[in-house]
């Protein structure tokens, strides 16, 4: 029971990262029609720059600065490369472009910061376990969950309550009509891409404190993130969150019973979902086919 709780909680933490990553990925897929393989790369950018800035500005400022830089980097990439892909309906091109980008980012990060994992200092306040029996529930882990929940709520509020967010949602439904109504869809797509990469950067900074700061961090998370998006349903933001939590928990619980299968279980879930419910848990019909 202890073990199950321990692995389950670990899985839930993983799941919240997958959910946050999947949320950004899902936004980018829906509005930019780009399958962003470099999403893990943006996560790396956020995490490593936060790590570098932290000695100068402290943890809390780095937690804000890392994601913002990742978002800015996202705009740069969108303007310089990704926008070439908008005129190509076949998703294979955007997939390969961002795949190349992911290779480059990972390689550069490895060259600058080294292939070994780096220690990521979290504030002492958050470092200690909350209770003695449940040693694995540290303050930082609770903080991570809270921060991700807050970010998710903030994103949904932004999309529902602000006019820019409403335009993004309308653009997801019908970009042509939105453009005819006089909305600058180029700006819309750029900002949307930036929001997605900003979320990835945020996930990166938070994950650096739980997992380890290593160049393979993004690579390990990106496939699980895709699985989360597909399981939740491409085009559904809420589905992405659900999918992320579900596969994280499933992987965690599997670790308790049969550790060797913990990596494979998420792909099995995805295969099963695609067979019985091809559009994912909350997906819409006809998107990306």
């Amino acid at each position: 029971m202890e073990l199950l709780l321990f692995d389950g909680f670990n899985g839930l933490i993983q799941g919240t990262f997958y959910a946050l990553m999947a949320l950004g990925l899902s936004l980018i897929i829906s509005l930019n029609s780009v399958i962003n393989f470099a999403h893990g790369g943006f996560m790396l950018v956020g995490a490593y720059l936060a790590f570098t800035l932290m000695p100068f500005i402290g943890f809390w400022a780095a937690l804000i600065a890392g994601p913002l830089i990742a978002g800015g980097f996202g705009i740069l990439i969108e303007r310089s490369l990704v926008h070439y892909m908008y005129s190509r309906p076949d998703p294979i091109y955007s997939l390969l472009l961002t795949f190349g980008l992911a290779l480059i980012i990972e390689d550069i990060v490895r060259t600058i910061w080294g292939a070994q994992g780096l220690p990521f200092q979290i504030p002492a306040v958050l470092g200690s376990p909350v209770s003695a029996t449940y040693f694995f529930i540290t303050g930082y882990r609770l903080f991570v969950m809270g921060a991700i929940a807050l970010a998710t709520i903030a994103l949904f509020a932004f999309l529902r309550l602000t006019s820019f967010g409403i335009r993004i949602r309308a653009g997801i439904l019908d970009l042509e009509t939105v453009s005819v109504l006089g909305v600058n869809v180029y700006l819309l797509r750029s900002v949307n891409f930036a929001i997605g990469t900003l979320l990835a950067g945020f996930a990166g900074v938070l994950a650096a404190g739980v997992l380890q700061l290593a160049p393979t961090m993004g690579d390990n998370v990106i496939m699980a993130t895709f699985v989360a998006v597909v399981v939740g349903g491409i085009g559904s933001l809420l589905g992405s969150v659900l999918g992320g939590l579900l596969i994280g928990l499933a992987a965690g619980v599997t670790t308790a019973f049969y550790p060797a299968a913990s990596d494979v279980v998420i792909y099995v879930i995805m295969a099963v979902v695609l067979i019985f419910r091809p559009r994912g848990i909350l997906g819409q019909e006809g998107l990306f086919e």
Partner: protein
Amino acid sequence: MRRGLSLDRRFWINGAVWLLLLAAPLWLPLIGGYMELASRVLIYGLAAMAVNLLIGFTGCMTFGEAAYFGLGGYGAGLMLTHVTNSTPLAVLVGTLVGGMAALIFGPLVMRRRGIYFAMITVAIGQIFYFIAERWNSFTGGEDGLSGFSRTPLHLGSLSIQLTAVPFYYFVLLCFAIGAAILALLLHSPLGHTFVAIRENRRRAQFLGIHVERYVWASFAIAGFIAALAGSLIALEQNFISPINLYWVESGNLVIMAVMGGMRSFWGPLVGAIIFIGIQDYVSSFFPNNWETFIGALFIIAVVFFPKGILGIARRRRRVA
């Protein structure tokens, strides 16, 4: 179907390609290449041609072809370690293992389209990857399967050591078989049906074509050919590792196909020449940073040459 290319021209192009491949040991050292590299190019070229059957000719975006490639490799490797010391038999069994897997998993993927097709093929591939990585006692786990080597070929009383040049010709023979199957297929009614599905899936359906069955067929054939290439890569490396099953390997195969030209028969081979060539050349100068060059290659290929190298050549010619 192949517009722009007259029969006569196709004859000369094919003749030139085969002549160059047959004479490779003569001209390759002159430009600084070596035969192991040529064998690798042919093997990856064949696997990329299998990928292209799905992507370029059937319109199905596979992103998990490394599964069948790697399974072929493991099949051949395990045969040589445990069962036989006959190289051709190992290749045959490897091909059958990977191909049968594609045949069996075909029904799972045949109904999916677009991004879903890519995701389910990745998912299946990753399942095999993690099995190979975790099942230490059988597959050698993360370190890969080693401890086997290619054995001499026996032709009657003749025994041929498979050193660099003879092995190249062995690979070329297998490549020729795979390429011939693909060429015959693409010129058959079956191949035309694949192209019809690529061009307009719904219209093909209205014409009474059982689209899903044909996608299954295409997926299985591509699986067999990728597995053939995979069993050869196991022999070439004398080693097979989970890396050959990983989704990055699938991505590499896709980029070879796209870079060379998705709509052309020889495109994937051209893509493999460029990819393997650059990988080999760059990694001798920057052993730690060749990934950046490969990534840059992806980006340049996708942004500037979306139709592939051969696609450009064809467009130029039509203008001229």
